[in-house]
């Protein structure tokens, strides 16, 4: 059912991943959200290097809670990816191959994904505690001053996600919901507890 995959994503794997595949991701991923994205794209615009080698890497849109003593990471679920759309094409140009977040991406991002063969994974929003349990180590790479928004390198093991948009641009957010329009009333029958 679940495909185990490891990062950095190699080209053959990216080609194989299809929208709808359930995956368990292991390896290094980089957590960054709004403020870190702004800093990274500002750096690129100024002709500076990014704080990490982004080639082949995966960025996870997330900003955690602080960890409790004895835990590697605090709750660490995904944030809304759409807010990162405007920064993303420039990062895809630099070799970014995977993104993890929640929700839709815009046309420019999907075009960039097709062009550079990249994949977008949906993580489940609101399961930060469970996701934290898949994080085996954590290291702040840059922008420490941003607190929960710093750029952080995570080593994850079996991080659960779903391929939401594959490298051909097939988008689960487009293809799935229409299948269930009008289905609720058919399904509930006597399940009054739902109402």
């Amino acid at each position: 059912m679940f495909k185990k995959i490891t990062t950095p994503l190699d080209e053959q794997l990216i080609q194989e991943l299809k929208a709808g595949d359930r995956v368990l991701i292991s390896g290094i991923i980089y957590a960054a959200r709004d403020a870190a994205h702004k800093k990274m794209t500002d750096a690129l615009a100024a002709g500076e290097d990014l704080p990490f080698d982004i080639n082949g890497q995966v960025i996870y849109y997330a900003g955690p809670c602080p960890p409790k003593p004895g835990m590697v990471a605090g709750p660490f679920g995904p944030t809304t990816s759409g807010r990162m759309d405007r920064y993303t094409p420039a990062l895809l140009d630099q070799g970014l191959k995977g993104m993890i977040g929640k929700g839709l991406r815009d046309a420019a991002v999907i075009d960039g994904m097709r062009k550079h063969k990249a994949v977008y994974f949906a993580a489940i929003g609101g399961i930060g505690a469970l996701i934290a349990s898949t994080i085996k180590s954590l290291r702040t790479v840059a922008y420490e001053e941003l607190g929960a928004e710093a750029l952080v390198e995570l080593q994850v093991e079996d991080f659960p996600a779903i391929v939401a948009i594959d490298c051909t641009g097939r988008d689960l957010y487009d293809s799935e919901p229409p299948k269930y329009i009008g289905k609720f009333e058919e399904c509930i029958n006597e399940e009054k507890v739902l109402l």
Partner: protein
Amino acid sequence: MREMDVAIIREWVKKLFMHANYYLCDDIMKKLLAYRKVEVSDIGREVLDKILENARLAAESEIAICQDTGISVVFIEFGQEVHFTGGSLEEAINAGVREAYAEGYLRKSVVRDPLNRVNTGDNTPAVVHYSMVPGEKVKLQVMPKGFGSENMSAVKMLKPADGVDGVVEFVVETVRKAGSNPCPPIIVGVGIGGTMEKAAFLSKKALLRRLDSQNRDGYYANLEQTLLKKINNLGIGPQGLGGITTALAVNIETYPTHFAGLPVAVNITCHASRHEEVEI
């Protein structure tokens, strides 16, 4: 006259915010299980399973269900016979929030100024709603409110002639537009009547009501069910990846309004809808 030291409020605010963040409410848990049984989308069922597993894990380790531990919303309803002593009530509430977010390992998500966005570092100030009632009790309700769902909320000033159809259309359209952003399954709070801000207030209050309860007025209880059916027929499903579990409940609250208007507000919250209350 009853005297109450604000230190008591501070302690409760702290306790309630920590508790609310760690433990998913039992009424939400029950709804999730019920929908898990009937959800027809495979991905939808898997998502619901993970949400339930996450809730158990968070409770076990006493860590936050979701990393967006929200802006801190507090409703305090106090009897007019109560006299608060020991300092400022609002400062006591903020001190409780500060302690909860520091000692509870919760994320600090509040910025001091909406445009010049610098984090306050302790999740204060809280958004506090005061109300006064007869008697000498104090009712405290807290709600760490995540913004993935708050951002998808909306207010509209309908015309009286738009009537119930206008309300239904606006609510369903707001949820449709929200799509995957508020982390469905969601809970939909609807405020109808009053003024613009009163409708918004009611829509948030509606989110504090249990999911297995109904509006006391049969007409609005029916409207809650009509809306829920329409919303779950949209196909959005868990996480917006398709299915019949888009909303777990629709709660409506109403208030008298001006004869020239029909204010409606929709406040959306996610499956990680966290709130706690106490009567002191």
